[in-house]
């Protein structure tokens, strides 16, 4: 049995999405910048996709700018704001648990002379609004807080954060790459200025994303050149990708409540049964304020990569915050930020569900995982003490 439970890493392209894309990978190949009929067809298709995405965000189509992915959108929002407003101030506020696309962009800016405050989070992964208020200085130009975390699924109080940003007249960006397709975001209500999203997290193709840029917000370009995207993002448009993104967004928001209910039920079933069966297990992230598709557990005494390898051998695809999966020295900065010890962070397992996930697949995981954990524990020198009753 092949069970994919890594939907937060990426999702398959839905057949309807691929179908919408196909004409633009075959006969309709024109460049939207071209005047002729070949080009006009492509131009129209991009406009349709822009409308589809704008609609899901209750935004105006001219607030949507396509990019080459979520990372580009994050980099654009952060560096574009920083460079545009550097004469006003050079202080940025973000959190310790952002995706690397935000974190590393901020770290880069620090080297270039900006100051960055990384807000800590509590053990459930939430920032404190008090911390945020205290961090705002007269030269703060940007607050960037992710909507929901990609590892532990914790959902931040974006509306409250946005209100604080507004009060202090500071621009507010949210990385909603993991949220888009799961939660309704109404830009007419939400006090956000910039939102990063990415197609491949909601059954669209890889390599296309978008930045929502509220009308009137002016930031520098990241990619200069031709007049595409109202001169804000140069480069011949990835038409097929953009069309797929539009379609995927439309599908995702056709009945997002049903989607949420179904996944929440499956997620809780998976989480509860694993936690009941496997001792020395903890749930990472917030118990309630979490993405409907995210289960993140730490199994003490074992290391994540060996768990992933074992799961892979029985056909289950998952991910882990262990450093050993990434080739870096430290385990996930997110798990450390919520206060896990290195040891326990190394033993984390992320199972993320999606539209193709079935109860049967959940049952399979609940059957396969416990013996894997047990086998690795039996091999672990850290587990010896437990067996000896020293814990």
């Amino acid at each position: 049995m092949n069970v994919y439970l890594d939907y937060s890493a990426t999702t398959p392209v839905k057949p309807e999405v691929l179908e919408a894309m196909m004409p633009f990978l075959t006969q309709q190949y024109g460049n939207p910048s071209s005047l002729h009929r070949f080009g006009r067809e492509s131009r129209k298709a991009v406009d349709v996709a822009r409308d589809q995405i704008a609609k899901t965000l209750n935004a105006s189509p001219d607030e949507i700018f396509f990019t080459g992915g979520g990372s580009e959108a994050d980099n654009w929002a952060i560096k574009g704001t920083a460079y545009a407003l550097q004469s006003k101030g050079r202080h940025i506020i973000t959190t310790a648990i952002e995706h690397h696309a935000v974190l590393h962009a901020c770290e880069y800016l620090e080297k270039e002379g900006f100051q960055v405050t990384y807000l800590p989070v509590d053990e459930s992964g939430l920032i404190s609004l008090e911390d945020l208020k205290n961090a705002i200085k007269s030269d703060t130009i940007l607050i960037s807080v992710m909507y929901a975390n990609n590892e532990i699924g914790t959902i931040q109080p974006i509306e409250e954060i946005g209100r604080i940003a507004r009060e202090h007249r500071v621009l507010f960006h949210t990385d909603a790459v993991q949220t888009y397709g799961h939660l309704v975001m109404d830009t007419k209500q939400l006090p956000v200025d910039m939102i990063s999203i990415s197609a491949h997290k909601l059954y669209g193709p890889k390599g296309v994303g978008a930045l929502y840029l509220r009308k009137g917000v002016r930031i520098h370009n990241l990619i200069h050149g031709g007049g595409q995207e109202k001169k804000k993002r140069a480069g011949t448009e990835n038409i097929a990708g953009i069309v797929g993104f539009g379609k995927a967004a439309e599908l995702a928001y056709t009945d997002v409540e049903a989607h949420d209910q179904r996944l929440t039920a499956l997620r809780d079933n998976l989480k509860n049964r694993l936690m009941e069966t496997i001792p020395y297990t903890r749930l990472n992230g917030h118990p309630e304020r979490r993405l409907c598709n995210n289960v993140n557990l730490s199994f003490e005494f074992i290391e994540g990569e060996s768990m992933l390898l074992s799961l892979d051998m029985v056909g289950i695809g998952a991910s882990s915050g262990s450093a050993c999966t990434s080739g870096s020295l430290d385990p996930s900065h997110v798990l450390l930020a919520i206060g896990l010890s290195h040891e326990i962070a190394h033993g984390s397992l992320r199972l993320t569900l999606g539209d193709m996930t079935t109860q049967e697949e959940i049952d399979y995981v609940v059957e396969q995982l416990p013996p894997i954990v047990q086998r690795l524990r039996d091999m672990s020198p850290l587990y010896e003490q437990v067996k000896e009753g020293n814990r």
Partner: protein
Amino acid sequence: MYSEKVMEHFTNPRNVGEIADADAIGQVGNPKCGDIMKMYFKIENDVIVDVKFKTFGCGSAIASSSMATELIKGKTIDEALALSNRAVADALDGLPPVKMHCSVLAEEAIKSAMFDFAQRHQREFEGLKGYQPPTGDEDHHDHGEEE
């Protein structure tokens, strides 16, 4: 990513376990980096008659433990001390660059155990000249990260 040999040793690791009345025990690594290797030895007339390991770590750490213990079982202490991490990795048909430290850990676990043996019996071994037992705290391995 991993060779078949690595996967085979990860799936069916040789010499997993403990030895209750071990003549030598070595433990290296630390949980911070995500790997700890512990080896137990039974030694008779300077020959390794039995060896077992316990490993907390990634697939290649487990495979390296398995391979290293296989390579030294039945060998003399001097032969075991001569085992290089490179030899362990080669025997596994290679390890990814970021995982070479796992083979280093295996080499160090053996050295650490032999040091224990030497201390217990007031012995000296050519292969332990200049050996400093790890404090257990430092990050003494390099994950081979790219810039």
